[in-house]
C-alpha cells in the first residue's frame, strides 16, 4: 500500500466536496475491493474519502411499494433486515450469500453497485428488479446505470446515496459460485412484477451484467421453469477462463435461470 491522505466526512455534501476538491480521490465504502487493490499496489489514490460516518447513507426503509436501501448498508444488514425479508425475500437471500461473513459485515450495497464487478451479485438484482440508483445528483434507472465491466453511468463527483427496489411479485437469485473465489461464475436473477418479467445475468458476460431477452419473453408467456426448456443462452460474448469456458457458462445460465424461477414460485 502506498501512503495516502485519509478523510472521513459526515455528510454526503462534505464527501462530494472532498471528491471534487482533492486530486486523485477515491471513495471508500466497505473497502472489499478498494483495500485489497491498494494493498497489492494496483491502486494508489492520493486521497481516500471514507463514507463510514455518513449517517444519511445508511438504513433500510419501506416506501410504499418499494424498499429503499442506503448505499452504506452492509450485505449482512440487508440479509438480516425484516423489512427486506418480508418485502423482497429473494433480495435478502442474495445478500446473505455474498462472499463470506467477513465480507458481508464490511461490504456495502452502494460499494458493490458502484464498482460493478462483472461477477458481483447485486448488479443482477438491480437490473432484474428494475431498481433505481439514487445519487447526490439524480436518479438513474438500473437499465441505464450498468455500462460494462467495472463501468457505470456515475459521473465525476457523483455518489450513490440510496438504491430503491420496487417490490416484485416474485423474484429469486441463483448463483453458481466460482469454486475458488465464490464470486458468481454465473448468477441469474429473475423478477416478475405485474406482467413484466426481467432476467438479469451476472458473472457470465464479458461486458458485465446483462438482461436475457429470450428468457424474459418465454417467461412472460408463462412464469414457469418449463417455459425455459429449449431456451438456450448464446456463448458468444461470454467470459472464458480457467474455471469455465463460454459454452459451459452459457449452459449454466439456463440451469440457474430455471432454478431461480423454481425458487421464485416456491418450488
Amino acid at each position: 500500500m502506498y501512503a495516502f491522505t485519509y478523510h472521513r466526512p459526515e455528510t454526503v455534501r462534505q464527501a462530494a466536496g472532498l471528491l471534487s476538491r482533492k486530486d486523485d480521490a477515491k471513495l471508500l465504502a466497505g473497502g472489499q475491493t478498494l483495500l485489497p487493490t491498494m494493498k497489492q499496489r494496483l491502486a494508489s489514490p492520493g486521497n481516500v474519502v471514507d463514507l463510514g460516518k455518513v449517517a444519511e447513507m445508511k438504513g433500510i426503509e419501506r416506501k410504499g411499494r418499494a424498499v429503499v436501501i442506503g448505499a452504506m448498508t452492509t450485505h449482512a444488514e440487508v440479509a438480516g433486515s425484516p423489512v427486506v425479508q418480508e418485502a423482497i425475500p429473494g433480495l435478502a437471500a442474495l445478500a446473505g450469500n455474498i462472499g463470506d461473513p467477513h465480507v458481508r459485515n464490511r461490504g456495502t450495497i452502494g460499494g458493490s453497485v458502484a464498482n460493478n464487478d462483472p461477477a458481483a451479485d447485486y448488479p443482477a438484482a438491480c437490473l432484474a428488479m428494475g431498481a433505481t440508483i439514487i445519487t447526490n445528483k439524480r436518479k438513474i434507472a438500473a437499465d441505464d446505470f450498468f455500462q460494462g465491466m467495472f463501468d457505470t453511468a456515475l459521473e465525476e463527483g457523483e455518489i450513490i446515496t440510496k438504491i430503491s427496489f420496487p417490490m416484485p411479485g416474485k423474484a429469486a437469485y441463483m448463483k453458481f459460485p466460482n469454486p475458488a473465489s465464490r464470486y458468481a461464475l454465473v448468477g441469474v436473477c429473475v423478477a416478475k412484477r405485474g406482467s413484466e418479467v426481467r432476467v438479469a445475468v451476472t458473472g457470465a458476460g464479458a461486458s458485465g451484467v446483462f438482461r436475457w431477452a429470450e428468457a424474459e419473453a418465454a417467461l412472460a408467456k408463462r412464469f414457469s421453469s418449463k417455459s425455459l426448456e429449449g431456451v438456450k443462452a448464446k456463448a458468444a460474448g461470454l467470459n472464458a477462463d480457467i474455471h469455465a469456458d463460454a459454452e459451459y457458462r452459457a449452459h449454466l445460465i439456463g440451469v440457474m435461470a430455471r432454478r431461480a424461477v423454481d425458487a421464485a414460485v416456491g418450488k
Partner: protein
Amino acid sequence: MSATGIGASVRRKEDHRFITGAGRYTDDINRPNQAYAYFLRSPHAHATIKTIDTSKASRMPGVLAILTGDDLAADKVGGLICGWMIHSKDGSPMKAGAHPALAQGKVRYVGDHVAVIVADTLAQARDAAEAVAVDYGVLPAVVDTATASKSKTVIHDAAPDNTVFNWHLGNKAETEAAFKAAKHVVKLDIVNNRLAPNPMEPRAAVGFYDKGEDHYTLYTTSQNPHVARLVLSAFIGIAPENKLRVIAPDVGGGFGSKIFIYAEETVCVWASKKVGRPVKWNSDRTEAFLSDAHGRDHVTHAELAIDANGKMLGLRAHTIANLGAYLSTFASSVPTYLYAPLLSGQYNIPAVYAEVDAVYTTTAPVDAYRGAGRPEATFVVERLVEVAARQIGMDPAKFRQMNFVTKFPHQTPVIMMYDAGNYNASMKKALEIADYKGFGKRRRESERRGKLRGIGFSAYIEACGIAPSAAVGSLGAGVGLWESAEVRVNPIGTVEILTGSHSHGQGHETTFAQLVCERLGVSMDAVTIVHGDTDKVQMGMGTYGSRSGAVGMSAISKALDKVIAKGKKVAAYVLEASEKDIDFKDGKFSVKGTDKTLDFGACALQAYIAHKFNGQDLEPGLKEGAFYDPTNFTFPAGVHIAEVEVDPDTGVTEILNWTAVDDFGVVINPMIVEGQVHGGIAQGVGQALLEGVVYDKEGQLVTASYMDYCMPRADNLPSFKVGMTVTACPSNPLGIKGCGEAGAIAAPPAVINAITDAVGHEDVAMPATPKVVWRAAQKALKKMAAE
C-alpha cells in the same frame, strides 16, 4: 492403557498456546534494530538480465543495501543444492543447472529472485524495488511438461534438451514378457496435476549476525533446521556449523514445502552481515504461490497386464516429471525413489518396469508435497486397477482382493520389502463401513433425483518411516535418514526430550510426551519436548515422509531404554540390591521379591546428588542420547472408499460418503492420528476436485491467489468414517508405521474412480472441477441416450 500413555487420545498440549494467540512463529520474532528485506522478482518466465540499475533506488529513503547475484558471487556464497543424485539409464549423472540464491545473468521463472532490497521498513524496501531498473532480454517460456524436452528453448546450458535425467527402475525384459503373455492389457494416460502447498503460515526468515562472536543466527520456517544448517554451512558456505545457529520455532504447516533450503533465508542470513543489522523477510501469499516449491506435475502413460483368470502379471509406466526451473533440495528423489518403488501397490505383480524422464521448465521448482511421489504412484496403480476391473467385468473389490499380497515379508520387483500388513482385513472392514452391498439401492435412489452416483476405491500403500541411511545412500541420497534423541532427566524427575524431529502441526509435544509417560510413569506435565533449535538439539534430520513416529520416536525409545538401564544401576545402590534384581514398572524401581521401591523422581535425585554410590563406579547424572537408524521403510496401507453424486446439469460433484480404513501399525494418539487422516483426505480431495496450478503459455502464473487457486473447504467434504486395522510394524521397536501422508495418497484415485463410475467412462482429469465433470456427464448422457 493409562490415561496418557500409548493408545490414549490425549488432548494436544500445544493447542492452548496456538488457539490463544500465544504461539511464537518466525514472523513473531523481532530483533532490535531490525531491517526488512524485499525481493525483487522476475516478471518474466525466462529472460537474460542485461543490466540492473540500482542507482536511483539505492538513494531512496531508508534503503540500506540492494544486493544482486553479483554480490553473492563476490562473497563466494554458493548456490542452492539438490541433495539426491540420480543417474540416468546410461549411467550419466543428472544434469543440475546452477541455482544461485539471486539470479546471475538469467531468470528462469516468474518469481525468480533478481535482487534483494534491505531497508528500514518493508514499505521503503518495496518503494525502492519499484525504482530498480532491470533490462531483460526476454526469452521464450517452456511450460508444458510433456513437450519440454522437445523445446528448442534451452533453460540451462547444462541440460541442452531440458532433461535432468532419463531414469528407470525394474526389469524391462520380464515386464515385456508379462505383457506378451497377458489376456487383457489396460492402458491409461494420466496427468497428475501440479499443486501449490499453501501452508497456513507463509515462509519467513530473520537472520542476524553477531559481530563480537562472529556468529550468525537464523530463525526460519523449516521442517528440518539441522539440515538447513548443514546445507547453509557445508554447501552454500555462509559460516561453519559452530558459527551458525538455525531455529525453527512454531511453524504453521509445511506439507513438505518447508523441507527445502530456499533463496530467501539464505539471503537474509548473508545480508545481515552485509548491512550489520538483523534482516527480516516474511512471504506474502502471492510470493508463496510464486516461489514455494510446488508438488506433483507428472504426465504418465501406464499399462497393466492381466491373465485370463484376473491375475495381475505386469505393470509398466512411462512418466515425465516436471521439476520446474531449478532442482530444489530433494526434487530428484520424488519422481524416482519415492515414486516407482510404490508401483506394485498392495498387489502381487511379478514384473514392474518404470521409466521416468525429469524435465526443466520455466516454472517454480517442484519438490516434495504431502506424499511426495507416493500419491502419484498410487494414482497410477489404483486408476489402472479400477479400470481393469471394469474392463474385465469383475467387482473392483474382489479384483483387488484376489491380487493382494497376503504373505509377508513380500519382496516386490521394485526394491521394496513389505514387512507386515493385512490388506484383506482393511478391505473387509471398509466394505462393511461403506455398506458396499447397499450401494446399488442408493444409486437407483440418486437416479430418481436425476443424479449420477458413483463409488470408487483406493487401496493404497506408502513407504514411510524414511529411511535406512545406508539404503538411501545407495540410492543417491546425500544424507542419512536416522533420527536423534536425548532424554534429560532433571534432578526432581521432570524430563526434557530433545528430538531432531520437528513439529509443524503434527502434535509431537503431545505424542512424544505420551511415550515418555508410558515408559517412565511420569505425568504429561512433567515432560517437555524440545525441538527446532540447533543450539539445543545437537543434530537431527527433521520431519517429513511420515517419519517422526517410526524413526523419531524410536530414537526416543532407545534413549529411554538407556535412561531406565542407568536408573536401575542407581536404584541398585539406593535399594542395596543387585542390579539384576531391579525391576522398573509404572514409574517405580523395585527389588524383586521385596516391597522395597524407589520412585523414578527419587531415583533421578539420587543420580544427581550421587551420595549413595561412588562416582568412579557409576557416573552421576541421568541423561542419555541415542541415534536410531531404521532397518527398513515402514508400509502403512489401507482402503479408502469414496461415494459421490454428480449433478449432470451443473457438473458439481458432491462427496456423500467417505470410508477410510488404515493400518498405521501401533497408534500412540488415536485422536491426533484421526486428525491427520482427515487433513490428508481434505488435501487429496483438493487435488482431485479443486486444486491445480496453471501457468499460461508465457509462463505467467494464472493461479496466483485464492481467487483462482481453489483450496478445499469444509463444505467440499463429508463427515469421514474412519476405521483402523492394526498389524504392528516389525521394523521398529514401537511397531509404528506412520500416518501423516496417508489421506493425501489415498484420496485422489478414490474420488476419480467414483466420478468415472458415476459417469460411466474414464475421461475425467484432475482437478475434476464442475467444468470437467459437466463435460464428462454430457458425454455419459449422450451415450445413455444412444443406447
